[in-house]
């Protein structure tokens, strides 16, 4: 039994690559799970796609797991992107490394913003989708449940989650505050009505923002968000009008294509030179990156631009990270012991069954010769033989369990199979 992950994240790949490989909604993730399940039916799969990463987790017998090339081919087929354009950005981890990686992701150690709370929900969503599509199984179930427990333990035992941690809060608190000293007199335009957009507006509201306009393709969701944040809903078609007057623009849509091109923005900007803070939290990006150079007053930032601020958070929380890593290491070790121990289960069961069978046969033979023996003595003899068998089995099983603590006891299992003629 083994666990593997093939992935690309913000460490290994640029946003331009990640956004081409991203699964933009639950339906896409679900279809990806189904496709993996059909292509590799003997393995279990979970697909995790966030703005910082695209990861395919698999579990099962070692030879059943898809390798890096197979996952690359799957991603290429699914998204219609040639493998050569992203193959170098993909990474692979197996066994304890894969487990540790998942735990680090779930604990936000692998996130741009350390301690961000959204990642746990995103991992849960990925796992639920795999469960719904019958792509995962007992091993991934145990693995992901353990990941959630580890995440909870890290949050409760370290202060990794304290302070300004989410992408939205860093974006508003660090970048926005470097441009504007106050937000109560600023016009805020929000494009999109998802969780990220809502969270960002809440941070802006905490900073004093009052004039909030929500633009969204789906009027119902747009109005609902506007109501929740005390803003006004306007149809998406009015984008240019509101863009021209905005001081702060927050865009966090799930659009597969940029929604604001360079030309469209320039036209909206017209001859105005007032400072404009544009926060593009979409993945793929909603704003053409060239917009940053339209004029001196436009400050456009996307998710990758937050990286330096996140690195600073990381340095400050170095000690907490170390404590979290100790917990993750401990939990990863426990999980792998479970996996290895579980892998020895069939051999141990067959060995026990084989010896029990021998014991029963011998007891039966002996009892047929001791017909005059009282039932009490018979029971004592049976018990004694059973104890002998257990005592004889104990040392090899003890050694097997010890061996499983430090890695897969493949050699020992093979030796037992040969010594006691245990078939697969």
């Amino acid at each position, binding site marked *: 039994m083994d666990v593997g992950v093939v992935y690309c994240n913000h460490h290994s790949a640029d946003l331009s690559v990640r956004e081409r490989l991203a699964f933009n909604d639950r339906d896409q993730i679900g279809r990806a799970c189904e496709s993996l399940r059909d292509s590799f039916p003997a393995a279990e799969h979970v697909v995790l796609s966030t703005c910082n990463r695209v990861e395919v987790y698999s579990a099962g017998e070692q030879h059943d797991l898809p390798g890096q090339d197979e996952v690359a081919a799957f991603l290429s087929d699914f998204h219609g992107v040639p493998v050569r354009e992203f193959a170098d950005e993909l990474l692979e981890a197996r066994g304890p490394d894969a487990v540790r990686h998942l735990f680090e992701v779930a604990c936000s150690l692998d996130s741009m913003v350390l301690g961000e709370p959204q990642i746990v929900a995103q991992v849960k969503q990925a796992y639920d989708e795999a469960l719904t599509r019958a792509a995962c199984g007992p091993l991934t179930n145990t693995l992901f449940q353990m990941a959630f427990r580890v995440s909870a333990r890290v949050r409760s035992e370290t202060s990794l989650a304290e302070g300004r941690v989410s992408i939205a809060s860093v974006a508003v608190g*660090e*970048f926005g*505050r*470097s*441009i*504007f*000293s*106050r937000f109560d007199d600023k016009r805020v335009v929000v494009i999109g009505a998802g969780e990220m957009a809502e969270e960002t507006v809440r941070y802006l509201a905490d900073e004093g923002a009052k004039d909030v306009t929500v633009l969204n393709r789906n009027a119902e969701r747009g109005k609902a968000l506007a109501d929740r944040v005390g803003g006004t809903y306007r149809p998406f078609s009015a984008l240019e009008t509101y863009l021209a007057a905005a001081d702060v623009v927050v865009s966090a849509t799930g659009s597969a294509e940029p929604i604001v091109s360079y030309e469209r923005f320039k036209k909206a900007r017209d*001859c*105005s*030179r*007032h*400072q404009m803070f544009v926060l593009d939290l979409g993945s793929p990006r909603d704003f053409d990156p060239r917009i*940053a150079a339209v*004029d*001196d*007053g436009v*400050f456009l*930032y996307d998710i990758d*631009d937050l990286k*330096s*601020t996140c*690195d*600073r958070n990381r340095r400050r929380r170095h000690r907490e990270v170390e404590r979290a890593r100790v917990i993750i290491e401990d939990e990863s070790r426990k999980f792998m012991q479970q996996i290895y121990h579980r892998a020895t289960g069939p051999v141990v069961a067959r060995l026990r069954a084989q010896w029990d069978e021998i014991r029963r046969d011998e007891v039966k033979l002996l009892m047929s010769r001791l017909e005059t023996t009282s039932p009490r003595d018979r029971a004592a003899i049976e018990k004694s033989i059973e104890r002998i068998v257990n005592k004889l089995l104990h040392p090899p099983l003890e050694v097997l369990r010890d061996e499983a603590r430090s890695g897969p006891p493949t050699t020992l299992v093979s030796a037992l199979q040969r010594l006691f003629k245990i078939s697969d």
Partner: protein
Amino acid sequence: MNVTVFCFFASYVVAFAAESARLVRGWAALRVVVLGFIAAGVFAHTLFLLRQSSEAGLPPLLSSAQDWILVLAWVMSVAGLVLALLDDRPAIGIFLIPTVLLLIGASLLTAGPTPSSTEYELTLATKRWAILHAALILFGIAAVLGGLASSLMYLAQHRRLKSKRLTPASDMAMFSLEQLARWNRYAMISAVILLALGLAAGAALGAVSERVTALSWFDPLVLAGSAGWVGLTGFLLWLLRSGSDMSGRIIATRTVLVCGLLLVTIVGVQVLAGGRVSLSGWHS
């Protein structure tokens, strides 16, 4: 107590070095070092000016051009100390301490003969007008320096935000662009008003004092100061008219040019005049 210019100059240099070190290492102890050395510099600076004033028998503003520039440096260093105490952002020291050091350096170039109180037998009215004139000009120039510093900070912050390097190797935090632009505007308005009042007080001083009847409107310092004020006023009018249509970066760049030119002219004329110590010597 034998306090020399070197004492406070060295203190400010150490404070600047510690402030620069904070850009690389954000150690809290460095802030204490910065505050300690600025405070020590201000203390020595104050003692020096008091001694100079006592020896000249005149307020520091009137004793010599050198002391006038040193008072200007003192005002800037006190402002830097107060701001550093209120806000721990290294940017303040990084931009203000070099200004103080440059002013002290410029004051050394204007060193003149040791003042003697016998040269300044001024009437009370003349003395009051002279102090008012020198003080208003001094605070006007301080406002110009403030505008210059805020514009330089604006340009640095703008560059960082545009290059998306909000936190380079350091954890240096700076004021927001909006705040810096606001300070720049206030500084320019204050500078124009204070310098205008200072020039008017200078004219009144000429009228009430028989000692400075030789003062000519064609005096280089008067001409330079008046031309600088006209230029600054023109710039302020442009600034007020341009409103939000003009890029903040262009405004900051032009502020640096205008203020820089004004300071170079004013201080340059002082240096060329040699820092005469008599009141009439201020205007050669």
